[in-house]
């Protein structure tokens, strides 16, 4: 009897670790599957392993491969590359604009007292609480009604409406944890407002600004729902492009594109998270 109780106790001790393994498998296995299959050379059934190959990677960049001609599904490499270019233009512009707006607003709300503060706070949080699809179509109707052509510009405008809020939150958190007496000390020592901002405030909140900017960059690069509604002909971004191929069926090239995207986003996110853990210590 004590033996059984012993076993149960041992088991319950490891129960959490066992659960942890299952939890991590659930998170990681789907992505590992995609990466694994991107190297499968079987052109007919991607689920049956048929040897290792780089051909899918070559084919998405337009190089000729050993694969059967019929196996080339992707309409054109040009489309893929131009959507990638669009994505980068959009996310870099969005990052700059939303980081500026978000940081300025965070400074205003943290350092000043004024009457409409709670109104502003609500206005900042609202775009994040509204379902993406609602914001997407609201922007679509707005652009069409006032006559702004759906283009990269409309996507950038759309992204900044909600990404400024994300930057605001990250920078505000940093400002809240900052010691205000340092600024006062700087004034006492005779520095003017500009010098104090440049020498004290900005260096202290810069991890927040960088963190917010990285977050904005990643979200903008990956945004599908809002971009889907406000991108016009010729301004397709990478997620929208891949989504449109996926809607037409599961094709092996997508494995290779997906793997490249996983690697890039993990590198950016890994760098960001690592940087943040360094600065918060």
């Amino acid at each position: 009897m004590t033996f059984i109780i012993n076993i149960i106790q041992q088991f319950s001790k490891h129960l959490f670790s066992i659960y942890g393994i299952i939890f991590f498998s659930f998170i990681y296995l789907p992505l590992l599957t995609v990466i694994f299959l991107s190297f499968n050379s079987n052109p007919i059934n991607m689920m049956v392993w048929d040897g290792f190959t780089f051909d899918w990677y070559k084919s998405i960049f337009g190089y000729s491969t050993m694969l059967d001609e019929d196996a080339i599904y992707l309409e054109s490499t040009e489309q893929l590359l131009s959507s990638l270019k669009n994505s980068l233009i959009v996310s870099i512009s969005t990052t700059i604009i939303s980081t500026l707006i978000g940081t300025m607003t965070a400074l205003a709300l943290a350092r000043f007292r004024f009457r409409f503060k709670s109104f502003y706070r609500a206005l900042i949080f609202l775009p994040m609480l509204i379902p993406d699809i609602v914001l997407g179509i609201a922007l679509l109707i707005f652009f069409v009604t006032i006559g702004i052509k759906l283009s990269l510009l409309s996507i950038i405008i759309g992204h900044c409406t909600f990404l400024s809020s994300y930057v605001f939150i990250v920078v505000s958190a940093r400002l809240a944890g900052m010691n205000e007496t340092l600024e006062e000390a700087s004034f006492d020592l005779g520095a003017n407002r500009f010098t104090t901002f440049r020498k004290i405030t900005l260096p202290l909140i810069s991890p927040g600004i960088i963190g917010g900017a990285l977050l904005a960059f990643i979200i903008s690069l990956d945004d599908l729902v809002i971009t889907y509604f406000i991108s016009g002909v010729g301004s397709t971004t990478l997620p929208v492009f891949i989504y449109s191929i996926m809607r037409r069926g599961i094709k092996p090239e997508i494995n290779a594109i997906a793997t490249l995207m996983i690697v890039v986003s993990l590198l950016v996110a890994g760098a960001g998270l690592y940087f943040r853990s360094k600065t918060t210590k």
Partner: protein
Amino acid sequence: MTKKNRLFLLLSPFTFYSLLFFLGPMLILFIFSFLEPGIYGGVEWNFYHDNYGRILGWADGEFEDFDIIYTIIFLRSLRLALITVLINLLICYPAALWISNLNPKLRNFFIFLITLPFFASLVVRLFAWMIILKPSGILNQVLISLHIIDEPILMLFTEGAVIVGMVYVLIPFMFLPLYASIEKIDLKLIEASKDLGANKFITFFKITLPLSIPGIIGGSILVFIPSLGNFIVPDLLGGAKVMMIGNLIEQSFLMGRNWPFGSALSMMLMATVVIFLLFYVRSVSKYENETETIK
């Protein structure tokens, strides 16, 4: 520069941007939901309430009738969103508990590992599930080779697939608030409970669970909103059979070209979200009052 001027300078970009590109579009969406749809896709600028009537049941427009299908889709979206919240909670709670019990160094590393995959693109993560769930997919192959099933079963294009997809995509939105609230719990309370003779289970149900309620409510709301209005997941994993409000809105905009009707649907979706948010605010403030009296 005076204080007032500096404040004005700092606030004006956001004020301008928000009024023009956020409140403006939302106002136009609201107005559109009360306009008459034009025959060829445009709008007539007349007041017209049948957009809502088609959904809620009083439509008497010329070509438009109330159709029970909209109610069915609305209820289905609510059901799927609530199931997604519940399953996500059940999956993430033990994981958050597990990680908060590890030593601090390991803890941060595991949080890093958990958040990392969710920076991979949404389409990529859903593509992975398409490969896993399709008839010739990994899961069917595994089940067949284990002799659990004889022939592939239909997993893709079912409600189950949509739920799995939404749960997977939204894990960090549940996990992080849960972890934050569990980690904050004062260890002294748990020790006190043990000293007073309570076993692990009683300690969990009397101390840990009640104190993590803000995290549970916060995570649930953060998962609920994007699941309710989702259209990508049901589109890719649910197909035509599992339509949600999001798909209906998308179709009325990009296929049906009935913008006023799509706007009315969006307003209804927003109303649902607002109702749940109000419920959230109320329950959180109620909870705060209660813990206040305990202290």
